[in-house]
Every structure is written in structure tokens, then in C-alpha cells.
């Protein structure tokens, strides 16, 4: 995968000039502390039941506006309850904890992949669980929500993207990075379920480079930001990261260059994304990206391309469904800071790995992987043989 290295070098050459960093006032520090709000109110019972203390790592970013909080939940990947309730339990727990935040969050952003296979039963189930959260809610879709009926049910429940709103001095933008995948299904006369199945296989070879912002949204973004002062904060929510981390798993958007071209004049841009199900931090030019946890299950770090600025989370215990997963709350404090707090559900004293042997990406130097093979033949090998 040498071409990946070439493209990454291109990112650096194009955007990472020696004097280019995110706004210098946005100092990044990391610390771990016990999050007291979780030990109060209704959450105490569940915390005690599971026997964990939620220990939270924070990224503090100096900011410039009045204090408020917002919460991020994504990648719940709900199956119908008769298939499994594991993910339903975890999504419910996250939403209950969001509702129990004290002081309360101003809004919840749901970052996509509410459903596992785009099934209306799954999406309705998600909408039902989301009723737990009474504060303002905004939504962006994931590929798992979209490709059974091409977003019909999703849009009926959660509205259209892109969207934008200004809140206490910050411009928030929600983009759809999933719906503009190239048509791989028509020529092969796939059923809706087959199309969805390929889309739901992270490491599949059939769906290709489906993640992208698209020309229409790029134009919209440029217009939307044109009246916004260049030094004021912009937060962009996307399902996929807005940089190239690992294209084989669509840990990117294919038009990241165009996105960065539009965002280049702005000095205070934060992209918050889901899809990767892991702790991630990156800076490209003047833009910072923060990757969020899933509530469902953690993806392994990609075998290459983990941003150098990312401190990987600890190895995950596959025997513990609540390990390596969770949600996030972001606090914009009166002291002009925003704290991103990973609410990872695990009984550990910290979530970031210090030693390579404990790190989720510690083995990356030792494993060389191959793209899968069985889905490259058509008719699809196996099921239709």
C-alpha cells in the first residue's frame, strides 16, 4: 500500500507548512480525572451495578466563548431486539447518561450508524431509545443507516443534511459523508439487502471508496462559511474523518483535499467524527480532528496511518462488552476551554496506553495485512455459488 504513503506525504506537503498549525490559542493538553457528574443522580445506580468508575481522559482546547456542554453519541449499530440486545443495552446506557449530565448538555449530536443494516425496525428502535434524551438533538447519518433504502427511512425520522446552526459564538455544521458512494449495485443487479450487506462490511472490497463530502455539499460549505469570521470557531460533525487515515476501511473522505481547500482560510476549525470506533486525534493544516468512541464495539487501529498525534487507547478486552466503547461529552467552559471527555466504559485507571505492549496500536509495526479475497469474485463467492 505504498500509494497510501505517497498520499500522506502529499497531505503534509500541501497543508502542513512549517508555520501552519491550528490556532495557537488552542493549546492541547491531556489529563485524566474522575468525572464527578457520573457519580450523582440516576447514573450512580448503573455505575455501581457494573462496578466501574468512569475515568475520563480529556483534551482541553482553549476557546473563546461562553460556557456550555454538548454530547456526542454514535455508532450504536442496533440490531432488532430479537437478534441481540447487547448493543441496545449500551445505546440505552449512553442516552441515559447524556440525559443525566449535570449541568445538562445544550444539545446531543448523534454521529451516525444508529442501525446495523439500515432495517426500519432498527432505525425505529433507535428513534425510540433516543426519546430518553429530552435536550435538543441533531443527527448525521452513517453508511449503516443509509444503504438499504438509500436514506428514505433515515430522512423521515431525522431530517436532511447538511445543516448548520450558531450556538453561543460557535458555528456548528453537520455534513453527510456517506450517501454519495459510487453505484456498485445496479450493474450487478444487487438486491437492496445485498447492497447494504457490502456497505456494512468495513473491510469489504465491493463497495469501494464510498466516503465523500461531494461537490454539492462542498459548495454549500463554502457558501455557508463565507460570511463567518475567519478566526471564529467552527465545529464540523461528520461520520467519517475529514482526512486520510486508512482508505481501505473508509477511514477518510475521498475528497479531503477539496474540504481542506475550503477550510484553509479558517483558523479555528474542529472536526468531530465517528465511524472509526476509537480514540483518535489529528491536526491537518489548521484543522484538528477528534475521533469518537462507538457504543457498540471498538474497531482495531488500522495497521498503518494512525496519526502521529494520536495517543492510542489501551488494548481492549474482547470478553468485556463494555470495554473500549462509550460516548463523549464536550464542555465549553467559561474559562474559554473546550474539554472533550471520552466516556469509555471500562474499569481501568486510564484509557490512553503508556507502554507499547498495552497499546491498541502497539502491534502495528508487527502486522502486515491483506485485503479480503472472497468478495472479489462475482457472482459473490459462497452465498451464491
Amino acid at each position, binding site marked *: 500500500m505504498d500509494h497510501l504513503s505517497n498520499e500522506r506525504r502529499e497531505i503534509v506537503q500541501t497543508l502542513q507548512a512549517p508555520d501552519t498549525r491550528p490556532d495557537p490559542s488552542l493549546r492541547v493538553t491531556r489529563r485524566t480525572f474522575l468525572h464527578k457528574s457520573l457519580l450523582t443522580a440516576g447514573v450512580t445506580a448503573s455505575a455501581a451495578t457494573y462496578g466501574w468508575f468512569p475515568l475520563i481522559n480529556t483534551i482541553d482546547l482553549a476557546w473563546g466563548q461562553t460556557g456550555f456542554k454538548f454530547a456526542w453519541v454514535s455508532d450504536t449499530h442496533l440490531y432488532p431486539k430479537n437478534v441481540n440486545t447487547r448493543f441496545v443495552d449500551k445505546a440505552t446506557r449512553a442516552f441515559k447518561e447524556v440525559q443525566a449530565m449535570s449541568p445538562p448538555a445544550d444539545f446531543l449530536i448523534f454521529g451516525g450508524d444508529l442501525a446495523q443494516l439500515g432495517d426500519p425496525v432498527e432505525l425505529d428502535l433507535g428513534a425510540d431509545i433516543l426519546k430518553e434524551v429530552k435536550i435538543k438533538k441533531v443527527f448525521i447519518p452513517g453508511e449503516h443507516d443509509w444503504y438499504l433504502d438509500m436514506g428514505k427511512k433515515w430522512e423521515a425520522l431525522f431530517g436532511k443534511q447538511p445543516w448548520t446552526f450558531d450556538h453561543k459564538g460557535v458555528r456548528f455544521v453537520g455534513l453527510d459523508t456517506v450517501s454519495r458512494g459510487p453505484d456498485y449495485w445496479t450493474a450487478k443487479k444487487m438486491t437492496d439487502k445485498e447492497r447494504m450487506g457490502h456497505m456494512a462490511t468495513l473491510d469489504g472490497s465491493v463497495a469501494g471508496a464510498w466516503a465523500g463530502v461531494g461537490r454539492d455539499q462542498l459548495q454549500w460549505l463554502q457558501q455557508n462559511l463565507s460570511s463567518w469570521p475567519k478566526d471564529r470557531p467552527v465545529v464540523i460533525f461528520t461520520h467519517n474523518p475529514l482526512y486520510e487515515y486508512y482508505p481501505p476501511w473508509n477511514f477518510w473522505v475521498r475528497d479531503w483535499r477539496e474540504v481542506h481547500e475550503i477550510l484553509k482560510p479558517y483558523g479555528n476549525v474542529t472536526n468531530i467524527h465517528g465511524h472509526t470506533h476509537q480514540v483518535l486525534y489529528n491536526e491537518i493544516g489548521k484543522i484538528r480532528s477528534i475521533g469518537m468512541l462507538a457504543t457498540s464495539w471498538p474497531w482495531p487501529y488500522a495497521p498503518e496511518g494512525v496519526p502521529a498525534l494520536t495517543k492510542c487507547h489501551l488494548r481492549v478486552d474482547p*470478553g468485556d462488552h463494555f470495554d473500549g466503547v462509550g460516548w463523549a461529552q464536550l464542555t465549553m467552559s467559561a474559562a474559554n476551554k473546550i474539554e472533550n471527555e471520552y466516556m469509555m466504559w471500562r474499569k481501568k485507571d486510564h484509557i490512553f496506553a503508556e507502554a507499547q505492549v498495552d497499546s491498541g496500536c502497539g*502491534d502495528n509495526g508487527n*502486522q502486515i495485512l491483506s485485503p479480503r479475497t472472497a468478495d472479489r469474485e462475482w457472482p459473490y463467492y*459462497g452465498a451464491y455459488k
Partner: protein
Amino acid sequence: MTLRSIIHRRASAGGAPAPRRPAVRTTLAVSAVLLTVVALLAMGANRALAHKEKHTPDQLKAFDDIFMEQVKVGDLLFHGDGATEKKLGVELSKTAMACAMCHPFASDTHPQEFPKFQEQINKFATLRDMINWCIEKPNEGVKIPEDSEAMKALEAYIYWSNRGSRLDAGRH
């Protein structure tokens, strides 16, 4: 090692009980020679069977086809293909979770590190032990026999996908 030295080693390894008695020593030496000759002939015969002729491209392709067929079956099992599970009579998951949902491209399966002490199982384990642990615990499926077709196929896929990884048995 020369034939002479092999004979010598075999005779010594035989631990002749009474070296001072020539008749016994001679008998032992003759037995050792005979045994060695038979063993060498047998090895030669096997080698002759396996490498009777130079490999032809067709032969090599046939070997590869046999392997890749198993890789593909393993790939499908690993990605939760119901038809393949049914065909092989296995139920690898009852939660709709497939192996690949935590191990895309068979990442973090670390076949190159086995055998090793595996924390979850609390024993010195093989890759096959770990595959069965994942089937039984996170996937809540039904464990498969260690030498079953499904196990060998899963193993084939995991090894194939990791064939570039550095062999490092015992690494944690």
C-alpha cells in the same frame, strides 16, 4: 554429518550396557547400522515420492488452488456468511457478530504470535484455542472441533491475511 558418525551416534545413544564385551558391542553396532540404513532408505523413499519429478506450473497452481479455496471459505466464515456456515454445519455466532467486525483484514488476530500464553484463556494456547474462545465468548456461538474443516479454513484465512506479518511466537 557422515554416515559413519550417524552410526556412531546411534550406537552411543543406544547406551550399550557392557562395552567390555565385544560380542554384545558388535551385535549392537550391526543392529544400529541396519536400523540406520532402513531409516535412511525410508526417508529416501518418501523424498522420492514427494519429489519424483520437478514441479510443473500446473502442479504448483493446483497446490495454490487448494490453499486459496480454503482461504476463501475461511474468509466467508470470518465475515459471517450464513450459507457457508450452514454448508459446514457450524454456528460461529448467535449474536450476529462476525469475526471480521472486530478483526477487519484479520487484524489483531496475531497468528504469528502463537503459541503463547493467552490471558483470556489463562493457558499456553494455540491460534485454534483462541479462535474457539472468540466463537464461544464474544460471539456466543458453538465451539468447533480443533481439526474440523471450518477450523482449518478459518486458520487458512487468518494466516493468509497475515502472511506479511513478522513471525514472533510467544509475543504478547
